[in-house]
């Protein structure tokens, strides 16, 4: 009775006698049913084995500084580190907004995000989160683009295409403030445009003169229309738009200690991966470029405007520095001004940040975001 199903199907096709065909079909179904049963039994046997080592899921989304997560899991680097610490780490790609939703909904344990979203999504929603890796900062990836040689002072009154309430709006505000145009901020006419359509909308209609967006969209616009110039980009505000790996604090503090192992494993894997990228390892770069379907040339161009903290000591140093506090203060004030911390948050101090030296920005009893340099430090000391 144990026949190979495809052979059976062939026989079914050859049969002309309908009664015989029905019988054969029945056998075929029986075989299929048996296979399903066996497969589920096998799974049943396999799952307990997996369940012994705790599983963690990391969400990431397409961005120059996060693409390495794709290469990291595909190349086996992550698996090696996870095995070393006896945990299982899954890496899953999301759309950016969806990854944050999943993280806040506690469907995933760790997620890549900018410092701004770390503050206004999980932290402001009461999900206590810990920054374990400061991966990079945008060093020109985000830019204010304009046609017709406009200057920043000429922006008020003109429609500005951007995704509102994101780092794009932050960048625009900083551009105005740094150029002494604070008083013009209320006169900016922002047009919320989805990132999936901003390139078409800006290029297609010459009457749209200003757009704020990020790479690779910036490159797409600038390459296709040489009349578009960058007025201001994130290299003027270094270390303000940070790209982080954030872990839920309750995951990190699991009583069985598996959270700590997970953080160590992912930090170890991360610094091994970025070391390869910093050394211009062709495989690492093409593997990371493939994560977003970019060409290697385009990805390299994006990396040039991304300051990767490829050495763990530099990341650890920055995480422990006073600069981080100053930059985070700019970001949290922005979030509060724009009600990103919630409609009913009365004070910017209601979403407090704890720094590695124990300093707290905000109310002591309302710490929601923690910067933990431990794992970067361990990586720097080679103790992972």
């Amino acid at each position, binding site marked *: 009775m144990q026949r190979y199903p495809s052979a059976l199907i062939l026989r079914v096709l050859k049969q002309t006698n309908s009664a015989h065909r029905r019988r054969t079909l029945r056998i075929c179904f029986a075989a299929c049913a048996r296979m399903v049963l066996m497969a589920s039994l096998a799974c049943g046997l396999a799952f307990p084995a997996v369940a012994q080592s705790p599983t963690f899921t990391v969400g990431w989304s397409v961005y120059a500084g996060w693409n390495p997560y794709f290469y990291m899991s595909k190349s086996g680097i992550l698996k090696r580190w996870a095995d070393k610490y006896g945990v299982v780490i899954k890496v899953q790609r999301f759309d950016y*907004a969806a990854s944050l*939703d999943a993280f*806040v*909904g506690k469907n995933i344990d760790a997620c890549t995000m900018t410092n701004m979203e770390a503050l*206004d*999504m999980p932290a*402001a*929603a*009461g*999900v206590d989160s810990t920054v374990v890796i400061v991966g990079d900062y945008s060093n020109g990836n985000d830019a204010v683009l304009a046609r017709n040689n406009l200057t920043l002072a000429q922006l008020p009154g003109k*429609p500005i*295409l951007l995704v*509102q*309430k*994101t780092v794009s709006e932050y960048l625009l505000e900083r551009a105005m403030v740094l150029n002494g145009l604070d008083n013009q901020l*209320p006169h900016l*006419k*922002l*047009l*919320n*445009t*989805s990132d*999936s*359509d901003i390139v*078409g*909308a800006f290029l*297609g*209609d010459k*009457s*749209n003169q200003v757009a704020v967006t990020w790479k690779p969209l910036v490159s797409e616009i600038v390459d296709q229309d040489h009349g578009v110039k960058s007025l201001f980009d994130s290299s003027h505000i270094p270390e303000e738009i940070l790209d982080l790996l954030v872990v839920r604090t309750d995951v990190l503090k699991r009583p069985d200690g598996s959270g700590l192992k997970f953080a160590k494993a992912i930090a170890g894997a991360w610094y091994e991966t970025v070391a390869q990228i910093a050394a211009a390892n062709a495989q690492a770069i093409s593997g990371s470029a493939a994560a977003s379907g970019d060409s290697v040339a385009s990805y390299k161009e994006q990396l040039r405007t991304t300051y990767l903290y490829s050495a763990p000591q530099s990341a650890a140093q920055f995480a422990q520095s006073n600069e981080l506090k100053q930059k985070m203060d700019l970001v949290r004030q922005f979030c509060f001004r*724009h*009600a*990103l*911390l*919630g*409609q*009913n948050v009365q004070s910017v101090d209601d979403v407090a940040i704890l720094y590695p030296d124990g300093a707290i920005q905000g109310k002591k009893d309302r710490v929601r975001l923690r910067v933990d340099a431990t794992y970067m430090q361990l990586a720097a000391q080679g103790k992972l």
Partner: protein
Amino acid sequence: MAQPFRVSDLAGIQVRPARLWTHSLSWILFVAGIALYAHFSIVRHRENPEDRVIPSATQMIHGLKASVLEPAEEDDPLDPGATLFQQVRHSMIWKDTASSARRFFTALLLLVPAMLIGLHMAVFPYVGAFFLLFVLFFDKIVALSLLPILFIVFGIDEWSKIMLMVIGVAPTLMLDTYNIAGGVPKEQVVKAFTLKSTNLDVAYRIVLKQVLPQLINSVRLNLKPLALFLFAGEMIASTDGLAYRIAIMRRHMGMDIIIPYLLWVALLLFSLDALLRFTNRRLHPWYQPL
């Protein structure tokens, strides 16, 4: 004389439930929905008192107050002495509703000529030959994917959104009108001509007059797709509108605003639908659908 209720009636066809029964039965699912929501909200808030994914009643009342009484973030704040009417008049939800409604009704108005084309297609064979195949094909195009082209042709402001709605819904309405108008018996048309009707008399006074109630019902069914296209357009590029606010609030999980907004949109659509149904019944008391 009302029969006393028996349990077996629940599965009966030949029963006439008492008013009390029909009324209470129709609210059961509402109550169940609210109860389910409250349950999940309470569970999540027990775990995390600041949860924003499933806001609690207090959070939502707070959000509702903010959207009904306070101006939108991008607008100037009101003077503290403003009256309640002024507060509502300058509130976020008023502003968003007004701009969304303007787009919605402009699109709805533009659908009237589309229905007239459908009528002409059914009545005048040459017009039918000219339009039918194209409309049948055009109807199958997923309008949303045309958006980049719409942006270029109609600009990024109001018209691209309105045209998205019109292009998305008009072919369906045209075809529906064509089918409905095509169903008017030929004998009536012949009879009208024998009574010295002109061509336009037949089109507008015989066919249109008879199918109008069905057309209004067709519009009622298309309110939802219309709203869907409006939302898609506003979420992609806009400076105000109900869906714009929802898109912005989603950036930081402002579900305490989003849920009241969604309920408000549902209520508006429900009222519009009810209004059309009521008008239809008043205008065409003779129309008795099967």
